[in-house]
């Protein structure tokens, strides 16, 4: 229990201050992500409150910030458009259930099968989608929209040169909102995008028919949300691990994300996950305990209840500016810088992951495509087999030296390297620098032997390592009986 107490109260001052900073930075994002998903701003705000508070108790990575996120919001667009909010709430609950199952089955370790180039593609695609989702706010807008967005971005990027005490995004929003109100510009505001109720969320069951048809509608969405949510959460957890030089329990985090989403769905919020940007802000502001996440959630709700009347007057221009900043900071610019140094196949995987997401608008498809493509590239790379051969001085024996992995993808190539028609007494196949991986490998060796024997040449194997020899003994010789 000591560590639990330490995780909560080991850093009270730093955690509270960082929590306040994060809450201020979360409000515009929660509203903007709600608008991306096509729901009222309250859905994202309730979600951010509920997810942050619940995860502070049940999460596996203290100091990480989870709330409504862009990655998740982007997956919900068509669901909300076609079926409405109630189905989204049910999907959120189902997502939570799936994530708890993932956590209980210790599936976090399968994360290692997702190559880094796919993760980079995921992050970059997310950044691009957040950016393009803002473009619709510019359609049919007057010049004032561009001016306000420009002012927002200028404040966000230039203010930190003077002070970093208050988040510059908050100052930008306050200034631009004040300008919009006093100049009476008539630009669209948050209030035009939906209701903002100044009440605490309450427990409700989603109002949907509980039948198989409903399940068939929400399950694909829930599965995509589950994968994307865990992916971003576990990636963020690793980043926070690194930034704080501590370790975290990834399976507990998976379960925690699930519990947070279940609770959130029942309290009228949209599914969310961990946020890279906010977590980095939290750590940089001195927060690394559970208290920081808790304070962020509670203070966010407090601000909405107290300041709801002002929040509805925030112009969309200010939010669009903040989202453009979020997109820029989400993008992994290092991936462009390092491009000349990394293997070209990694870059292809990254670009195709991004491309798939941009075409399908679904991060889950991008990840899937990226993983499959990486697997193909890997198999192609490792299936290269080199064979050198030399004859003995009397030219009656030829030794083939095999370099490379023998498995289903490499055997076709492997067999073509042998000259079966050569007039020899004996052939030795030296497998010291090779490894047999599967049935196909053993089959290929049998085939080679058979072909040589048809020509009256004896075949001997040499240098099989133990694992390969075991495999060979187990399944070898089956084909040679024919």
């Amino acid at each position, binding site marked *: 229990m000591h560590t639990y107490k330490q995780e909560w109260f080991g850093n009270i001052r730093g955690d509270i201050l960082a929590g306040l900073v994060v809450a201020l930075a979360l409000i515009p994002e929660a509203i903007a992500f709600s608008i991306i998903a096509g729901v009222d701003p309250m859905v994202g705000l309730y979600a951010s409150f509920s997810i942050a508070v619940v995860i502070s108790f049940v999460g596996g990575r203290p100091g990480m910030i989870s709330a409504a996120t862009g990655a998740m919001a982007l997956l919900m667009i068509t669901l909300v458009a076609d079926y409405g909010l109630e189905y989204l709430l049910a999907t959120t609950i189902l997502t939570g259930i799936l994530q708890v199952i993932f956590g209980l089955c210790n599936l976090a370790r399968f994360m290692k099968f997702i190559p880094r180039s796919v993760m980079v593609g995921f992050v970059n695609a997310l950044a691009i989608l957040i950016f393009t989702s803002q473009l619709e706010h510019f359609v049919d807008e007057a010049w004032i929209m561009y001016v306000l967005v420009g002012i927002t971005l200028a404040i966000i990027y230039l203010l930190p040169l003077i002070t970093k005490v208050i988040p510059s995004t908050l100052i930008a929003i306050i200034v631009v909102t004040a300008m919009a109100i006093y100049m009476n510009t008539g630009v669209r505001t948050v209030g035009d995008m939906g209701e903002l109720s100044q009440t605490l969320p309450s427990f409700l069951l989603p109002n949907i028919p509980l039948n198989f048809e409903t399940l068939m509608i929400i399950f694909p969405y829930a599965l995509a949300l589950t994968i994307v949510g865990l992916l971003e959460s576990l990636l963020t957890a690793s980043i926070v691990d*690194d930034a704080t030089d501590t370790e975290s329990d990834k399976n507990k985090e998976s379960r925690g994300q699930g519990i947070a989403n279940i609770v959130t769905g029942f309290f009228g919020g949209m599914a969310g996950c961990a946020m890279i940007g906010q977590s980095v802000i939290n750590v940089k502001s001195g927060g690394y305990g559970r208290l920081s996440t808790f304070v962020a959630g509670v203070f966010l709700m407090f601000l909405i209840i107290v300041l709801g009347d002002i929040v509805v007057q925030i112009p969309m221009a200010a939010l669009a500016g903040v989202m453009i900043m979020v997109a820029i900071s989400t993008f*992994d610019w290092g*991936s462009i810088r390092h491009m000349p140094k990394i293997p070209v196949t990694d870059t292809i995987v990254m670009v195709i992951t991004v491309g798939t997401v941009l075409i399908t608008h679904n991060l889950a498809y991008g990840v899937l495509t990226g993983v499959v493509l990486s697997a193909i590239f890997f198999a192609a790379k490792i299936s290269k087999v080199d064979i050198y051969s030399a004859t003995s001085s009397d030219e009656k024996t030829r030794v083939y030296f095999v370099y490379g992995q023998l498995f289903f993808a490499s055997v076709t190539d492997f067999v073509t390297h042998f000259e079966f028609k050569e007039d020899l007494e004996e052939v030795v196949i030296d497998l010291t620098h090779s490894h047999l991986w599967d049935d196909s490998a053993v089959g290929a060796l049998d085939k080679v032997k058979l072909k040589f024997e048809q020509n009256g040449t004896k075949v001997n194997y040499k240098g099989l390592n133990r694992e390969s020899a075991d495999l060979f003994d187990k399944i070898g010789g089956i084909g040679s009986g024919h």
Partner: protein
Amino acid sequence: MFKRILIATDGSEHSKRSLDKTIEMVSVYKEEVSIDLLYVVAGEMSKSDILRYGDSDTASLKRKKLMNDNEEYLKSEGITVESIVLHGDPAPTIIEHANDNNYDCVVVGSRGKNQLQTMVLGSVSHKAVKYVNAPVLVVK
């Protein structure tokens, strides 16, 4: 004489100059010198390193390797060296570490940024000169 020296490095080619200048400075009494090499991992650095190397352990290993080259370089000159990796905002972290450990001298690099870059990005070396209690050597 500066015997306990802290060198703040970012592992770049440029920070190698800090090592060279320090070696030059202590060359006549180098067997009496002990140097701490400090590498600070900033929050954003964690993000790009994790995306590049996969997980925290691998990222730490890569950083150790980065430090190792510098460490070996100083050792080959016969100087006692220790590497330290800290996490946080570079300037305050370097300043705090320097002031807590009473070094005789702190060495920081100053990269060839132009005026605009210095204005926008701020400068670790400026802050170090201002807030570190020990004498600071800024290597240009």
